[in-house]
Each structure stands twice: as C-alpha cells, then as structure tokens.
C-alpha cells in the first residue's frame, strides 16, 4: 500500500457534497444546488425548449457541473466518485429540466452510466413521464475499433456536444431534432488521450494505475482503462505525431475539412505544455490541409491529478460553426 496522495479535503465520505456546495456558492448567478445534490441552471431556459440532462461520476471536475448554464446543459446529476448516479436521481434531474419541450438525457458511454440511464427511462415510463429520450455519446477511438463506434466510451471530446447541443436546444429545436444534432456532433468527433502519471482515488487515496517513470500510455481512459499499449516517453512533438494520424484516419478528416480542436488537461499538465502540444497539432493540420475553425485548451474533464491530455477534433459544417459561436454561459465555459 502506497502513501496517500496529499489532498486538502475533510471527511472523505463528504467530498462530493462539500465540493458541490462550494461550487454553487461560487457561481450563484449561473447555478443552483438542490437538496438532492443536483446542479441546475439558476435561471431555467425558456418554456417549450428541450431540457438537457447529463449524469456522471464525480471526480472529473469541472465536468460536468461547469457545463450547466445558458446555452449549455440544464441539469447535471453528479454521482459518487467515479460512479454513475442511480436512476431515481436521474429521474429527479429529468423532472427539473422539463420545460414543456421534452427532455434529452445525455449519456457519456460507460457501463454504469448507460445502465442507470436505461433504468431512469424505465422509471419515467412507469411514472407516465413522456417526452424523454436518451442519446448515447462516445468519442474515444482507443476503446473500440472503427466499425464498432457504438462500443466506444465517452471522454473529453463530448465537450463539443455539450456546447453545440446546448446552443441548439436554445433555438427551440424539437426533441427528435436535438437528439439528431447530438448524434451528428458525436459522429463528427474523435478523441485520443495519453496518460503520463496516474490520478488517485480521493476517497481511498490509492493511485488508479501504475506507469513507469519513462512510460506513457496512449489511449488510456479517464479511469485508467488500458489503451493501445505503453510507450517510452517522448517529446511533445513526437507525442502529437503519434496521436494525430490515428485520429485523422478514423473519421476520416480530409484536406479541405474544417475542424475544431480541443486539448483537455487530465489534471496536472501545465498550460505551457498544452500550448507546446497545440503548436504541433496546428502545424500538422496545416500540412494536412485541414482548417482549424477554433481551438479550446484547458482543464475541463479531469481525473484528479492525473497527468496527461486528450486531443479531440470535431469536423464542422456551417450549422455546427454557428452553434459553436453561439453564446454560452456556464461556470467553466463562457462564450
């Protein structure tokens, strides 16, 4: 048993609640914390609009609490650390998001999230709550081969879906239209992540996986799920040179395409490293004839203090560009 990682917390069993209380007190004009521990928009969206709900295990902050707000998600249902919320809490989130236009339950594809979302939908049906649909979202190319996209898991690249779907729902689009748009963004997005050093589970204090000093793992998931194998640590340019081609080949992105680029900090990378990495991404995309419509770089979906990053690209057409540029006001995403 290794030593506990240094963390400034109180009683480990209270960390989720205390984190949510602090977050809600910091951003009272944007979000509100309910008694049941859900994060909802401080001002609900207009009547008749489709409500957007996302559940997730806690421990990945600012995902997803930071993406609740105008032009983004309406309700986030946080679970325990790295554990999906149960169905009753998800149903509570669906009720809170209902504004008369139906509710789209967004599911970042992990076994627990999918099962609990399915049970929540069964509960809604049993209780006569109609106009509720779910959409399964995924982006990580390392978790299943091409052709088996629906087996892939949801990671940082879902960022594009939160932003564009949030903007789309504000326009008064219908529930089926919102679901189709979420699928469109999902199907235009590809992500690959790399891990350098592990995060720790904040409750047990145990590291989540082990990597040698001079090793990285390309394709590692947000909970330390194994990727495409371990490699020797290389410099920033060589790392991007190894990661970008499989991403481009998977969609595929072609010369003449326009894309949004997102580099997500898994926890303890420096902003300096991320800019150095992005420099190489931009160079490589230039060389491939792929236009960059916009870039976003920072810590948005973390795994505690894990060192590593996820590189996500989303191919955009005029519709998606408009939705990307639309206003949004969440605690961790303002546009």
């Amino acid at each position, binding site marked *: 048993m290794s030593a506990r990682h240094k963390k400034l917390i109180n009683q480990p069993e209270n960390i989720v609640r205390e984190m949510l209380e602090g977050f809600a007190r910091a951003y009272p004009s944007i979000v509100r914390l309910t008694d049941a521990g859900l994060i909802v928009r401080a001002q609900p969206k207009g009547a008749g609009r489709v409500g957007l709900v996302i559940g997730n295990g806690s421990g990945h902050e600012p995902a997803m609490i930071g993406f609740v707000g105008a032009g983004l998600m309406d309700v986030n249902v946080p679970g325990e650390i790295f554990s999906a919320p149960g169905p009753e809490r998800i149903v509570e989130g669906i009720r809170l998001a209902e504004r008369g236009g139906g509710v789209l339950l967004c599911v970042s594809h992990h076994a627990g999230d999918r099962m*609990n979302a399915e049970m929540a939908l069964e509960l809604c049906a049993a209780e006569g709550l109609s106009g509720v649909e779910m959409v399964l979202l995924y982006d990580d190319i390392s978790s299943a081969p091409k052709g088996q996209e629906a087996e892939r898991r949801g990671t940082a690249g879902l960022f594009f879906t939160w932003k564009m779907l949030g903007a789309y729902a504000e326009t008064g689009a219908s529930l089926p239209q919102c679901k189709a748009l979420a699928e469109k963004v999902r199907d235009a997005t590809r992500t690959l992540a790399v891990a350098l050093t592990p995060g720790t589970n904040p409750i047990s204090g145990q590291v989540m996986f082990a990597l040698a000093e001079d090793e990285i793992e390309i394709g590692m998931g947000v909970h330390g799920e194994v990727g495409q194998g371990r490699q020797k640590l290389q410099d920033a340019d060589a790392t991007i040179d190894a990661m970008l081609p499989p991403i481009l080949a998977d969609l595929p992105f072609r010369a003449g395409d326009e894309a949004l680029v997102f580099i997500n900090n898994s926890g303890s990378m420096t902003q300096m490293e991320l800019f150095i990495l992005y420099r190489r991404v931009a160079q490589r995309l230039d060389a491939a004839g792929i236009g960059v419509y916009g870039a976003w770089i920072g810590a948005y979906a973390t795994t505690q203090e894990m060192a590593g990053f996820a590189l996500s690209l989303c191919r955009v057409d005029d519709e998606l560009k408009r939705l990307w540029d639309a206003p949004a006001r969440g605690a961790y995403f303002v546009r």
Partner: protein
Amino acid sequence: MNWAEVLGAVEAMYAQKRDELNALDAALGDGDHGTALHTAFKEIAARAPELAQARPAEILKAAALTLMNRMGGSSGALYGTLFLRASVEVKDLDRLTGEDMARMWEAGLEGVMQRGGAQVGDKTMVDALAPAVIAFRDSISQGRPAAEAYEAAAAAARFGAVKTSELVAKHGRAKFVGQRALGQIDAGAASTALLFEALRNYWREKGG
C-alpha cells in the same frame, strides 16, 4: 424465513469481507466495490425493524431501490436489478417456498443479463450468479430442501467466481484493463459468491 433478517446476514457477510472485495476491485477497477456494497447493505439492514412485518417482495424491493439509488454505478444497477426482478417474481406471496425462490433467482439472473448484456464467460458477476441459480434450481427440482439448494448454489457461485481469474473481461471498466485482468478474480463475481454464501449460512442455521 424473515427476509429482513436474511438481508441482515448479507450485510454481516459484506462487513467481514469488505476489504477483501476492495482489494480485488483495486486490481481491475476503482477499489471501492466492498465499501460501496457494504454501505448499501448497512442502510438496508438499518431498515429491518420497519420491514419486519413486510412481505418478502416488499423487503427485496426496498433492498433493490437502496442498491440502485444509493450505491449507483454499474454495481448498483446490476445488484438493484437482481433484487428488483426477484421481488416482482414473488409479489404478493406471504412466504417463499423453494420453488418460489428458484423462480425468483431465475428472474433476477435474467434481469442482470439483460441489464448488463453479459454472458457466462465475460468475467462479470454473471459467472457466479448463473451457476448459483442453476444449481439452486436443480436442487429444488430434485425435491431437496432450500437449505440444501443454497449449499449447492453457494458452492457453484464460489467455483464460478474463482474461474473468472482465467478470463479476460468483455464488459464494464475491467474490459479496458485487457490482459492485465488474467489471474485476477472479478470483484463482482466474488461479491455474488459472498451473497450466496451468506444465504447458505442463514439457511444452515435456520433450516428449511
């Protein structure tokens, strides 16, 4: 049988084996399976006094809802489904015969397999649950008492759980641990074996 007491026996089993389950889970997952399961059953056991007079189905349903809603994650969903489907199968019965329990566990197994999409051999709790349910059903169909059926079920569940060390996971987070899972017993299969061992111990003591 008093099902509130039965679930209390399960709680005692998980209290004793919590750290062992956490250690198994740490190899392939978050390392919190024992704690999460024990916390949920502690809450269930705490409700035993108010449920003492309730029908078995109501007690099983209360356990299911606690597992689903308080535990969360994949384990909460799967164990919750096991107990919920079991409760639906024996709805309105005042006491459960061996035949009732055989049907109840069969319904639970079917629910777990539907919910998780796992088959035998996928390195999940199904690898312990399926043999346990089949062994229980066989014993009852041969006219044996429930206590003997639980002996057979617990032995089958333990055997199935141990055999998961020879498998590579195809579902859940453990799937992404890949070949590293070889040699490791699946924590969900281990906790299912403990569930049936707790049931066996209870019936050993109470007979029937």
